[in-house]
């Protein structure tokens, strides 16, 4: 167990170090996220009071598109010069390679959320104070499931040329249950001012579990140098 955690930290640490060196992904993703928030904000008639539901929906769109870009970039690092081949040669469990990539992607997405969320809160005058804990729980759980699927598919799709549109095309429909359920839960939290229930958390948790387990199981079948 300790060994596995050490390996995951080693692998994810390597990814984050590369990110720190090249500073490509996070900057790009954050700017894209802000752009989406601004464009959708203007599209929804700037100056008028946006409903809390619209604000959470806009944030979801920003996370989704930003996230897909993260997945592409972090797996692209492995494809360049076939570095993935060296990982596959090493005595490392492939499941751990998956988990480490997932951790990297989640860290980057949290970085994205840390900038884009406050920006949206300010721009849309979105009152988080009604239930901040509920907001963060639902967002985080949604992100875990989304990143689980995204990390899996980035490994297969990243070696094709059509990367950009294709990965989004693959990941978005599969994540629809997460989008639908977290939106519905957010409506209850902020539209109807109801608390987050154990049922809500259980449902999102179950979704995350299905995505994580199925991705973890298929990942080793699809990894090819």
């Amino acid at each position, binding site marked *: 167990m300790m060994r596995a955690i050490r390996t995951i930290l080693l692998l994810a640490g390597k990814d984050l170090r590369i990110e720190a060196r090249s500073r490509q992904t996070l900057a790009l993703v954050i700017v894209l996220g802000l752009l989406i928030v601004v464009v959708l904000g203007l599209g929804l008639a700037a100056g008028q009071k946006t409903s809390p539901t619209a604000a959470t929906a806009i944030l979801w769109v920003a996370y989704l598109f930003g996230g897909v870009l993260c997945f592409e970039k972090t797996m692209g690092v492995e494809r360049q010069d076939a570095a993935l081949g*060296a990982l596959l040669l*090493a005595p490392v469990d492939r499941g751990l390679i998956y988990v480490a990539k997932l951790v990297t992607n989640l860290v980057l997405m949290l970085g994205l959320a840390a900038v884009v969320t406050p920006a949206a809160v300010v721009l849309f005058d979105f009152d988080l104070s009604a239930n901040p804990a509920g907001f963060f729980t639902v967002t985080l759980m949604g992100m875990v499931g989304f990143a689980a699927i995204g990390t899996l598919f980035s490994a297969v799709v990243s070696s094709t040329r059509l990367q950009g549109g294709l990965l989004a095309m693959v990941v978005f429909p599969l994540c629809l249950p997460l989008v639908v359920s977290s939106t519905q839960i957010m409506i209850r939290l902020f539209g109807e001012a109801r608390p987050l229930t154990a049922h809500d958390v259980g449902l999102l948790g179950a979704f995350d579990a299905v995505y994580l387990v199925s991705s973890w199981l298929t990942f080793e079948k699809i990894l090819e140098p």
Partner: protein
Amino acid sequence: MVSEPALQDCPSQTCGAPAVRAASLGVVLDERPVLRELNLEIAPGELVALLGANGAGKSTLLRALSMLIAHEGRLELFGQEVTKDQPDLRRRIGLIAHQSMLYRDLSPRENLVFFGRLYGVDNPAGRADRLLGEIGLADRGDDPVRTLSRGMTQRVSIARALMHEPDLLLADEPFEGLDAPSTHSLQEWLARLAGAGRTVLFSTHDVGQGLALGRRMLVLRRGSLVVDQPTSALDGERILQELTTP
């Protein structure tokens, strides 16, 4: 055509289980056989050259031996049958491939230390230092790999494959893109590794180099092994003829 494996080349003190033993080894990619019915035995400490025209299956054989791709038939490495995931076997294999398999945004030192830790090497930083010195890149050790020349990158990639001191080194055209001095030092290096009891199998398309460096030569033609003899028993004419036969 296929002669007996040249076991006499094996230094007697290291003869135990063969480093590689393949029986009816085959590889199928996309439902097409790329390697067929390969029978092969390589003893520890051998230095073997692998030749073949483009598409004959050289890279595929090296990838199958390094456990990167699935195989059919029976394959044993160091007396242990290759089944699925065997970390202890993986630790004994090193591969130099066409691509550098390095992270270009990291420095050579960071790459080496990272892979060293992945393999559980003791004191990876110290070993990386030593290897960087040996490949003559001690002063460039902290620049990102992407700023290095092709030859330098190739040398770092070789150092990566040797980081965990593999008992079996598989090298896919390692001389590709190296200048004369680097080629010379790599040749010396491979010979030294073999002399130290490690097994080296390298592919090349240069017949002369294969004959000069290898003690034994394998020639692949369309996925089958057509020559397997000590280099002392072979000459360039014969090999060229084998290579150009359709």
